């Protein structure tokens, strides 16, 4: 019989089965080391933050090109990290950089912007003969939105940023963030209905 002191009080499991808590290095320390070219610190920054940047990029530029743009984003992060002033949170700075890179990419392929993104999605779902699931429908409807509206919706609904944070990332006033989100939601509903969404 195990003595009560051998059990973890929170989980009730034996203490030795509980992994020791991970001690994570503060981001400002990682930034400081990265600025000196410390590759280990750069990798840690990448590991911590690539997920959110990639999520945003997939819906901004499409699955086909998201990885290429992500690579450009992090190369730029490490090239310009010494310009990060620390006035905003690192995450906000990274979202801004990611979004700017995505918008620049979209401008370059402007002529075929959403049709490319939507056809990319349609190709991915071409094997599905049955009605698209809600997630795929939303992805297709999102692809029809203008980039500014799409970015606002993703930053709010997926990345869970506040209006104030979205305002800093997109560099527009909070009132504009609110009107963009309102417009994005109205348009999404219309596009979803066109795609056969059954509310």
């Amino acid at each position, binding site marked *: 019989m195990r003595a009560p002191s051998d059990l973890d009080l929170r989980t009730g499991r034996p203490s030795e089965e509980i992994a020791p808590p991970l001690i994570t290095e503060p981001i400002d320390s990682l930034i400081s080391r990265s600025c000196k070219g410390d590759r280990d610190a750069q*990798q840690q920054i990448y590991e911590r933050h690539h997920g959110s940047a990639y999520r945003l990029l997939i819906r901004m530029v499409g699955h086909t090109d998201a990885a290429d743009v*992500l*690579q450009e984003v992090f*190369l730029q992060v490490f090239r310009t990290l010494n310009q990060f002033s620390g006035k905003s949170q690192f995450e906000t700075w990274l979202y801004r950089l990611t979004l700017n890179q995505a918008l620049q990419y979209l401008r370059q392929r402007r002529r075929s912007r959403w049709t490319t993104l939507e056809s990319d999605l349609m190709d991915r779902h071409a094997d599905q003969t049955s009605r698209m699931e809600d997630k795929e429908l939303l992805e297709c409807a999102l692809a029809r939105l*203008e980039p*500014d509206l799409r970015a606002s919706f993703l930053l709010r609904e997926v990345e869970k940023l506040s209006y104030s944070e979205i305002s800093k990332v997109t560099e*527009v006033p909070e*009132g504009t963030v609110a009107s963009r989100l309102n417009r994005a939601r109205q348009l999404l509903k219309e596009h979803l209905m066109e795609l056969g969404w059954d509310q």
Partner: protein
Amino acid sequence: MPCSEFTDLLSAFHDGELPLDRKVAVADHVAACPACSAKLLTYQKLSGMAAYLNDSLPPANMWSNIDTKLNSQPAVFAQPAVKLQPWIASKVVATATLVAMIGIAFVAYMAWPMHGDHHVAVNLGPFIDIFERSPMEAQQHLRDTYSGQKTHISAAMTQLKYSPVVASGLPPEYAFEEASLLQMPCCRCLEACYRRAAGGVLCVFEHERDDFVKFGEREVSAIDCGGRPTRVVDMDGRLAASWSKSGRFITVIGAQDVGEVTRLMRHFEQHDQVKR
């Protein structure tokens, strides 16, 4: 408050971004309005669907690709720490101080309100970005950015103390939508927005000062338009154009072509002649 005004607030209400008094007002309205209640339910469903977008990972070899690229680039991270001899350091400090003082004096001179060469360029690039998608949203962006307020042109004339080019209206094919008085970095600016009978929105800016207007990163072409030097920018099939007139600066956003810009220029000239 009419239902349409609540509709504009539903999205922020859903996000929990309204101040308490408005939140209560919207909640009361939604409880009594089936249409707004249905709209709110749709927003909730959209949020539910968006939760499933949280699922993607980049290719596993992404970091090694970045690592390789970083290795192939020259190291720019570490700045060499240069130690100066004390006498050189004092000279550097003295020179830097002198340069800083000259810089401050120059900025102060240029910013002095009575100085004739006062130049603070206005960048209309972000406005055009939004205008291309939603002209009316762009109006709100302008007012948010430049402490603007909606106004009537006649009321604006009293504040501006001059008669703007749009004071006697545009040709009949343009219907007036709204006007805003803006506090731009250079000066006050009247912006008036019109809807064409044939479709599309056109905005006319008039800056108090004959200053330079920027259009973001767009390529600017200099053309002769009706005998007047004009800067023109392509904006997704439409045009932005600006020209100097009587010591002020006129900018038109959303013109269909150079012909329309020329017609508007002539119209504004006629307005001036009638005024005299």
